[in-house]
């Protein structure tokens, strides 16, 4: 855990993230420590929001994008997707395969969404290059 905290502080020192973002990341890290498993059973709350932070310096001017998407929207989207006729799903699956995304949309059921959201809490995506920095995580 100290390693992750050090990584955040390094990113702050290098100017890749702002002090606010560092504070949020450290708070998220501390929450994950507080909610760590006891007696082998995880007791953490499911995440409520998907956060997307983009910091771009590619055109000389700094651009920051901060998006917070309610995960309720994901639940609603999956319910909406369950209404798509089977032949349309087959076509979408075929196109996804062609694009190199082997996801079977027919297996995406509303009753599985809670498990999916629970596991999204563990997900953190960080993409860094010299001119931009993208963080995606759930909170």
């Amino acid at each position: 855990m100290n390693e992750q905290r050090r990584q955040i502080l390094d990113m702050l020192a290098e100017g890749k993230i702002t002090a606010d973002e560092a504070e949020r990341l450290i708070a998220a890290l501390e929450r994950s420590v507080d909610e760590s498993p006891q007696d082998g059973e995880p007791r953490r709350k499911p995440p409520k929001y998907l956060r997307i932070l983009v910091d771009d310096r590619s055109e000389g001017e700094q651009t920051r994008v901060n998006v917070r998407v309610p995960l309720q929207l994901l639940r609603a989207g999956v319910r909406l997707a369950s209404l798509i006729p089977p032949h349309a799903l087959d076509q979408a699956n075929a196109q996804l395969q062609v694009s190199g995304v082997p996801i079977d949309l027919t297996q995406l059921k509303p009753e599985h969404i809670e498990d999916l959201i629970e596991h999204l809490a563990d997900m953190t995506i960080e993409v860094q290059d010299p001119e931009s920095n993208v963080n995606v995580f759930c909170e």
Partner: protein
Amino acid sequence: MMSQVATVHVHSGKARRIRLWIPLLPLYVVLSPLLVLFVLALLVACVMYRVNPFRALGAGARLLWALRGLQVQIKQGGTDVLVKLT
């Protein structure tokens, strides 16, 4: 519950700061005639594609409900724009 207020903050380095709290209920009332047309079109589409119209309406309403809490903030140079649904 559907979003009740849209918050828009615009802050430009040189210009003054603009803060708007837009109540959405009047907007829903104004748009309600369009909603009737939308529901009719949805019913026709549901019949064409053999989808249960009640489930489709429920899913659409749930999607609208789920927008509450959405927040988008963009900062570029001295300009900062924040849009939030609460």
